[in-house]
C-alpha cells in the first residue's frame, strides 16, 4: 500500500538554505509520528529525486573507465601503470589505505555512538554502516588490482592445499588479508542484523515482485515480538562492541604494512593510532558528503536535518584536531629521533619533488578543518559539501605521500628515483573505484532503508516522553504516548 504523506509537498528551493540561527532544531522534531517515519522512508525509496538516476549513470560510466584501465593493465602487465623498480608501489596502495580509512567512520557512528547512547546518530548510522561495507569492498579490489599476478591471489589464502605449503604468516599483507576480511565480514553482518526490523517493515509495505520476496526472505519472519526485541538489543550491543575493536585493530594492521618495514618514513611507532584517527577523520568527511547528497536525493530533510549535520561536523572537527596533533607528533619524533635516514626523508618531503603536494596536503588536512569550528558554517550545505570533499582529497594525498616519497628516497642513493608519476592507468582505476563505491551505495540506499526506521521511532518515542514531562511541569494534562503524530 502507498502511504500518502505531506513530506512530498516541500519547496525544493529552500533545500540549500541552512537552518536559521535562532530556530532551535532538534535531531528529530517531537511532532513526527511513527506512521510518518515509515511512510517517509518507504516512499523515499519508491521515487527519489531524478538526480538519483543521473548519479547512477555517472557512477556506471566511472566504473567503465576503471574496468577498461584494469583490463588493459591485466593484459599488458603492470608496467603500463608506470611504476619503476624503485617506486614499486603507487596510487593503488595509497587508495587501499584511503578506502579502508573511509570505512571507519561508519563503525564509529554505528558502534561506538550506539554504545554511548548518543541518539542523534540514529538517523545517519545506517548509511554510514553501509559505507563501511562498500568502502572495504573497494579497498579489497585495490589489493587485487595491485598484484602482479592477480590471477593467483589465492596463494595468499591459508587453506590446506595439495602443495603442502602455506602463506607466510609473518607478512603484514597476510595480516591485512585476515583483518580486512574479518572486518568486511563482520561489518556486513552487523549491517544486516541491524536492518532486520526495518526489512520486516518493508516486507509488510512493499507488495510487488522480487523485492517483496527479497524482504520476506531477509526479514526472517521478524514480527517485533517482545522476545525478539529483547535478544535483538543484547546481540546488537555485543556486535557493536566487537566492531569497535575491529575497527581499531583493522587500521592498525594496515598501518603495520609500513610500520613493520624498514624504510625511512614508514618505520614509525606512532603509525597505528595515526592511521586509525586519520581513518576516522577522512571517513567522517566522506560521511558529510554522502549526508548532503542523500538528504537531497531521497528527500530525507526531515531526518538528516541540520542538527544532525552540526553534530557530525563538530565530531569531524574534533577528530581533525586529534589527527593534526598526531601528525605533528609523528614529524616531531622523526625530527628529534636518531634515524638520519628518516630525517632526510622528512626533509625530502618538505623540499623535494613532492614538496608542492606535501604542503597542499598539510593545508587541506590541517588548516581547512578549522572552517568547521565556526557555527555559522557548520550547517551551510554548500560550504560543508566543498569542505568535506577537500578534506578527503587532503587525506588521500596524505596516504599517497606516505607511500610514494619513501619509495623514491629510501636507503640507497643510487636507486633514488624522483620522477615517477603514476600513469593514466592508475588514475583511471582510482577514478573507477569512486564510481564503484558510489554505485554500490546508491543501489543500497534505493533497495534498503538508508535511515533506520525503528531507531527513529525509538527516537520519536523518546522525544514524546520528554514532551510529556515538559507538559507535566507546565501543569497541563498528561498527553498520551501515542505513536501518531501529535497534531
Amino acid at each position, binding site marked *: 500500500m502507498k502511504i500518502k504523506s505531506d513530506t512530498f509537498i516541500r519547496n525544493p528551493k529552500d533545500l540549500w538554505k541552512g537552518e536559521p540561527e535562532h530556530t532551535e532544531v532538534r535531531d528529530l522534531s517531537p511532532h513526527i509520528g511513527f506512521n510518518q517515519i515509515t511512510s517517509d522512508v518507504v516512499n523515499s525509496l519508491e521515487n527519489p529525486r531524478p538526480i538519483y538516476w543521473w548519479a547512477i549513470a555517472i557512477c556506471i560510466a566511472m566504473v567503465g573507465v576503471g574496468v577498461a584501465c584494469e583490463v588493459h593493465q591485466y593484459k599488458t602487465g603492470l608496467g603500463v601503470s608506470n611504476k619503476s*623498480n624503485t617506486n614499486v608501489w603507487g596510487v593503488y596502495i595509497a587508495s587501499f589505505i584511503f578506502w579502508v580509512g573511509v570505512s571507519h567512520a561508519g563503525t564509529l557512528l554505528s558502534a561506538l555512538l550506539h554504545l554511548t547512547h548518543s541518539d542523534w546518530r540514529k538517523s545517519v548510522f545506517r548509511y554510514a554502516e553501509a559505507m563501511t561495507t562498500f568502502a572495504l569492498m573497494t579497498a579489497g579490489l585495490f589489493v587485487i588490482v595491485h598484484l602482479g599476478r592477480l590471477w593467483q591471489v589465492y596463494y595468499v589464502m591459508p587453506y590446506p592445499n595439495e602443495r603442502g605449503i602455506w602463506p607466510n604468516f609473518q*607478512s603484514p599483507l597476510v595480516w591485512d588479508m585476515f583483518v580486512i576480511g574479518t572486518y568486511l565480514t563482520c561489518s556486513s553482518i552487523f549491517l544486516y542484523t541491524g536492518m532486520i526490523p526495518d526489512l520486516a517493515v518493508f516486507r509488510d509495505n512493499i507488495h510487488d515482485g522480487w523485492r517483496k520476496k527479497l524482504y520476506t526472505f531477509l526479514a526472517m519472519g521478524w514480527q517485533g515480538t517482545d522476545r525478539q526485541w529483547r535478544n535483538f538489543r543484547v546481540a546488537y550491543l555485543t556486535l557493536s562492541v566487537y566492531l569497535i575493536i575491529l575497527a581499531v585493530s583493522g587500521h592498525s594492521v594496515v598501518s603495520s604494512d609500513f610500520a613493520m618495514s624498514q624504510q625511512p618514513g614508514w618505520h614509525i611507532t606512532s603509525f597505528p593510532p595515526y592511521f586509525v584517527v586519520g581513518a576516522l577523520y577522512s571517513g567522517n568527511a566522506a560521511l558529510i558528503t554522502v549526508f548532503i547528497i542523500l538528504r537531497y536525493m531521497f528527500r530525507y530533510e526531515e531526518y538528516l536535518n541540520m542538527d544532525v549535520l552540526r553534530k557530525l561536523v563538530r565530531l569531524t572537527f574534533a577528530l581533525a584536531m586529534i589527527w593534526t596533533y598526531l601528525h605533528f607528533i609523528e614529524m616531531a619524533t622523526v625530527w628529534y629521533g636518531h634515524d638520519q635516514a628518516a630525517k632526510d626523508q622528512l626533509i625530502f618531503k618538505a623540499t623535494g619533488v613532492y614538496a608542492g603536494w606535501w604542503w597542499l596536503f598539510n593545508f587541506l588536512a590541517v588548516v581547512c578543518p578549522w572552517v568547521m569550528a565556526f557555527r555559522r558554517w557548520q550547517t551551510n550545505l554548500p560550504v560543508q559539501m566543498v569542505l568535506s570533499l577537500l578534506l578527503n582529497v587532503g587525506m588521500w594525498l596524505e596516504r599517497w605521500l606516505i607511500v610514494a616519497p619513501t619509495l623514491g628516497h629510501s636507503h640507497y642513493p643510487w636507486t633514488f628515483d624522483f620522477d615517477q608519476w603514476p600513469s593514466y592507468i592508475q588514475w583511471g582505476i582510482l577514478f573507477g573505484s569512486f564510481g564503484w563505491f558510489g554505485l554500490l551505495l546508491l543501489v543500497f540506499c534505493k533497495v534498503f532503508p538508508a535511515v533506520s526506521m525503528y531507531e527513529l521511532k525509538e527516537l520519536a518515542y523518546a522525544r514524546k516522553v520528554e514532551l510529556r514531562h515538559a507538559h507535566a511541569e507546565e501543569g497541563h494534562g498528561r498527553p498520551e504516548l501515542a505513536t501518531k503524530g501529535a497534531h
Partner: protein
Amino acid sequence: MSIANLLQNWSRYRDTHPYGGAKPHMGYKWAMAIDMDICTGCNACTVACYAENNLAVVGKEKFLNGKSMHWLRIERYWHDSVEAGDPIELADGKEFKEGKQFHDQGAHFLPMMCQHCEAAPCETVCPVGATNHTQDGINSQIYNRCVGSRYCNANCPYKVRYFNWFNYQDPATENVWPEPLNQQLNPDVTVRSKGVMEKCTFCVQRLRAVMVDARTEERLVREGEVQTACQQACLAGAISFGNMLNPESRISKQWMQQEVNIALDAQPKNKHVGDAVDKRGYRILENLRPYPSVMYLEQVRESAV
C-alpha cells in the same frame, strides 16, 4: 603431521634461523667478498649475469623508466665533492655544492647485487613465502610462487630486486628474445613471466648442480668446485665466492682476516680505527641489521700523489 611436529620439536621451531641462534647452517653458508680496489668497473660481470640468468634486455624507454633488469649493477661513485656523499650535481644539472674541479682521484666502482642477507627484510614481508632463507644461507626467490605484491622490493634497503613489469618472453608484445636469440636461454634458469619479482640468486643453478654431485659422492662441495657467473667472468678476480663453513675456502679466510663477523651489526674493529688500516672489509648498510652475506673491501687511493 604438523601439530605433532609442533609439539615434538617446539624448541627447534623457536630457534632464530639461521644466523646467530643455535641453528647452524647445514654444511653450507654461501657468501661473497668483493674487492673494490681491484674492481675496474669493466661490466664483464654484468654481461656474464645477463648470459647466465636469462635477464631481459628491456630497451631504451623501459631503462629510462627504471625498469632495467640488471641483477648485478655496477655503481660508480665520486668521492671528490666537498663532503663525501653530498650530491655533486642534482638531476637538473645545477651545482649542489662546489666540489673540486676534476674527478682527479678517479671513480669508485661498486658492484651491487642481492646481498643475501641473513636477516633479510624481504623475506619476512612476502605474503606467500616466495622468498625464503635456504638451509645453505641463500635468499631464495621462487618465481612460480610469487604473486607480485612487490612488498619485498619496497622493503629491500639495497633495492636489488627487479620486477617483471611486462611479459618479456611474449613475442607478440615485448620481443626480448627474437628468434634465434632465444636459443641462448639457459635451460637451468626459468624465464620469468609477467608479474613476478626476480633477483640475484648466487647462480643457484650452478650451486645445486655441484651440491647434487657432492651428495651422490657423499661429500661436501669442495672449494673452487663452483663459481658464480660474475666471479668466473671477473677479469681482476675482485669477486670471490664460496662456502663460509669450509675453513679452507678463500671466502672464510677473507672474512676472518678482515675481522668481519656475519652475525654482528657493528664490527668491533671499527671501534679502533687507526690501527686497522688494512682491514678494509665492511658490509653496506650494516647498521640496518640485515646481516648481508656480501663483504666489500674498501677502495684504496695512494696519498703520495
